[in-house]
């Protein structure tokens, strides 16, 4: 029998960026907050052995232990989904700070176009531009409405950058100047300018200089040590929830961080949650934590899974098109080109997660789609995050993958290769969704989340178009040999692509086709907020964290309002 604990004002399920922001803002406003985190705690001093590619980048030390919980996957409805037995295509986070610990720190804003994608596409190109079965929808909020929250998040993080010449209006500059440039990033910047594109510095959460944020949290300057992606920062120079919003929440005296608390169910009655049931994984005991407001702030997968296992909200059914939970699961495309340079060697082993240059000319509706059979686009980035020797063995096309020639070539090109990579937008499709698996269960006996996903025709056409652009720019950069990431085939869950999974509990202004309003408040349960990239109705050609942070600040404002007045906020 689960023990029932004293009630709190607000509880968060998961303590990463979303949970940390909710905790900090609610606690600052006088609410008592408990953060339930299934993993352990960790902070800067836990990262003194972080320069270890094998442990962190290959064995995924900071990521989710999938022996306990994973997802199942199939490409199509008529296939049997099977468990993702090892991490691969995306790297699920775990423990305090979540993926906010091991992110690279690319902190973009989505385009004004993204938030009103359906309306703007129809306005400009007519209804027929949106093909059947693509569940394109507006977000129920505009860029201008979200702008102040982007601004807040960037200031919390101390983002280093310069304005995107093709982006939405900004109310203020980035808090810190852009990162440095290198031979590699300059080569790209110069080539982009020659092609009349508009390069700008990647907005970076690895900070160009020391910074104190509005909450008084101090961040250090990046050392360009090249251990960002998949690693924690041992300098406190890569913004994470652990060195910003979580300590801010702690200082109020109103936030309790409870680790090793794996939530397995949202308890609800008559359209209201009363709390959650969790397992203390150290004690091996179940507890019930009552709360006035329940906030789901775990990753995309678990936000959807918890609602489904708790039977809260209406599950999406791809056959009828009805229901919302699990709908609009989207991913991203990663076309790009690798350039091999014969005459130059680059310091590829140095870098920082978000050290790079970007062009946004092929993203959103920044270019005319009248004669193209797809919509949206992607950002092209040349970043220098540091090639690591186990994983970086670039060889020109046709080279064997082992033996003498492989050794020679992979060593030669390790310092003679540059990658130009797109992040291509991913639009929702009727057949791509999340639900519960009928067969496989996690370590606690709860069904695994099932992902049904494949790339679409829109994806294939966009991928092909973007590949041409990256090839062109790589040639302009002077590469002797250019190798493209080949044609888009069926989505494969094995090779790493991107940890930019979105959707499943999406926002909007219509309860029939969205799960939450623009405060991330559930239409079906006033006191449940579901915060994170799970709220994105589609994925843009950017890293999601900037938008996630903005939505979390808005959700926090909503929770404070709700705590005073109750009811639906929209």
């Amino acid at each position, binding site marked *: 029998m689960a023990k029932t604990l004293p009630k709190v004002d607000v509880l968060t399920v998961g303590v990463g960026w979303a949970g940390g922001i909710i905790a900090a803002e609610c606690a600052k406003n006088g609410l008592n907050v408990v953060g339930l985190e299934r993993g352990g705690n960790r902070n*800067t*001093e836990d*990262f*003194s*052995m972080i*320069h*270890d*590619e*094998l442990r962190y980048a290959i*064995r*995924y030390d900071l990521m989710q232990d*999938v*022996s306990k919980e994973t997802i199942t*996957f*199939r*490409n199509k409805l008529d296939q*049997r989904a*099977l*468990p993702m*037995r*090892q991490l691969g295509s995306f790297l699920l986070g775990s423990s305090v700070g979540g993926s906010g610990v091991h992110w690279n720190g690319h902190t973009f804003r989505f385009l004004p176009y993204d938030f009103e994608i359906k309306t703007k596409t129809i306005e400009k190109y007519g209804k027929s531009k949106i093909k059947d079965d693509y569940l394109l929808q507006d977000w129920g909020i505009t860029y201008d409405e979200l702008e102040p929250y982007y601004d807040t998040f960037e200031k919390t993080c101390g983002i280093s950058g310069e304005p995107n010449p093709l982006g939405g209006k900004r109310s203020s500059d980035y808090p810190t100047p852009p990162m*440095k*440039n290198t*031979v590699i990033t300059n080569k790209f910047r110069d080539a982009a300018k020659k092609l009349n594109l508009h390069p700008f510095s990647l907005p970076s959460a690895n900070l160009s200089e*020391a910074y104190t944020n509005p909450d008084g949290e*101090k961040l*250090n*300057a990046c*050392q*360009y*040590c090249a251990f960002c992606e998949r690693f924690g920062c*041992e*300098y*406190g*120079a890569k913004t994470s929830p652990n*060195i910003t919003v979580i300590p801010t929440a702690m200082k109020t005296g109103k936030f309790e961080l409870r680790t090793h608390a794996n939530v397995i169910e949202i308890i609800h009655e008559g359209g209201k949650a009363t709390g959650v049931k969790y397992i203390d994984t150290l004690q091996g005991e179940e507890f019930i934590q009552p709360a006035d407001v329940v906030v789901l702030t775990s990753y995309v997968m678990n936000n959807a899974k918890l609602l489904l296992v708790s039977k809260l909200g209406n599950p999406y059914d791809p056959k009828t098109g009805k229901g919302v939970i699990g709908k609009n699961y989207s991913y991203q495309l990663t076309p790009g080109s690798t350039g091999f340079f014969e005459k130059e*060697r680059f*310091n590829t*082993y*140095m*870098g920082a997660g978000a050290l790079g240059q970007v062009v946004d000319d092929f993203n959103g509706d920044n270019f005319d789609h009248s004669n193209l059979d797809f919509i949206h686009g992607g950002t092209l980035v040349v970043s220098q995050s540091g090639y*690591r*020797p*186990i994983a970086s*063995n670039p060889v020109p096309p046709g080279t064997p*993958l*082992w*033996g*003498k020639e492989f*050794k*020679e070539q992979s*060593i030669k090109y*390790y*310092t003679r290769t540059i990658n130009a990579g797109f992040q291509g937008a991913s639009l929702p499709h009727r057949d791509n969704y999340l639900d519960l698996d009928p*067969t*496989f269960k996690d370590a606690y006996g709860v069904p695994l989340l099932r992902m049904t996903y494949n790339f679409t025709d829109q994806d294939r056409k966009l991928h092909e178009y973007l590949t041409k652009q990256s090839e062109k720019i790589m040639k302009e950069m002077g590469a002797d040999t250019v190798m493209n990431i080949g044609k888009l085939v069926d*989505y*494969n*869950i*094995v090779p790493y692509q991107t940890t930019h999974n979105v959707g499943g509990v999406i926002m909007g202004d219509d309860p029939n086709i969205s799960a939450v309003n623009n405060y991330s408040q559930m239409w079906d349960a006033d006191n449940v907020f579901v915060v994170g990239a799970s709220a994105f109705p589609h994925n843009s050609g950017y890293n999601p964290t900037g938008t996630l942070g903005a939505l979390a600040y808005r959700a926090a404002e909503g929770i404070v309002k709700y705590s005073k007045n109750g009811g639906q906020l929209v």
Partner: protein
Amino acid sequence: MSEKDERKDAMTRRQFIRKGGYVAGGAIGGGILGASISQMFMPTAPSPSPEISKTKNEGVQKADVERYNQALMFFNKQEDFKVLAQASERIFPADDLGPGAIDLDVPFYIDHQLAGAWGNNARDYMLGPFYPGIETQGFQSHLKRNEIISQGIARIQSVSKENFKKKFTELNEQQQDDILAAFEKGKVKMKGVSSNDFFTLLRMSVLEGVYADPLYGGNRDMAGWKMKGFPGNQMSYLAQIESKEFLEIEPSSLHSHIASPKK
């Protein structure tokens, strides 16, 4: 700039950077971390810590003594270990650039990894039921990594005997390569796994042993990193990141980073 000048330049930079590495390493080794490193202090940290320099020197001396950690944790038969070693060497052979898998201690690295959490798939989802699945669904075998490798090594030996009437270790390089290529192409029959899956696992393990931090028992004396031009564990490239030239930096491993556990 001529090649000779470039090398000279790299040497001076190397010394400079090594010094820089000691500095930051000293701060960490002394237990003064992130939050407490003064923001003003970080980019221009002064005077190296003598304590850490000492640790580093001891590390260098130790390279010449007996390597007591070189024995088998996983394999039972020394013959199997020899097959593993020679297959690894064909995947990453010694050549003019530098040592191959055997001289880099890669076979010991693999043996030790197979005995531990990774070899036993401790962090993989290993609950049933098991179904074959399609390629896009990823690895679905019920076998653990160490079961796959030991089965594969035994198969290399049996295929060698079937085809050449000799042990794998008695074959010439070309014959060894032919056998490994058959595994790579998925042509060898194995139980519960394809021979291509086995080969992919073996190949990846070899690259790990070549390039992982020497703390894991491979990459002897950081020679894997030296060949590749990867400087390992460096605390900061702040002063070098904008350099227009390619910099050769003497590698440093995590060992240089550890504080003495003594009082």
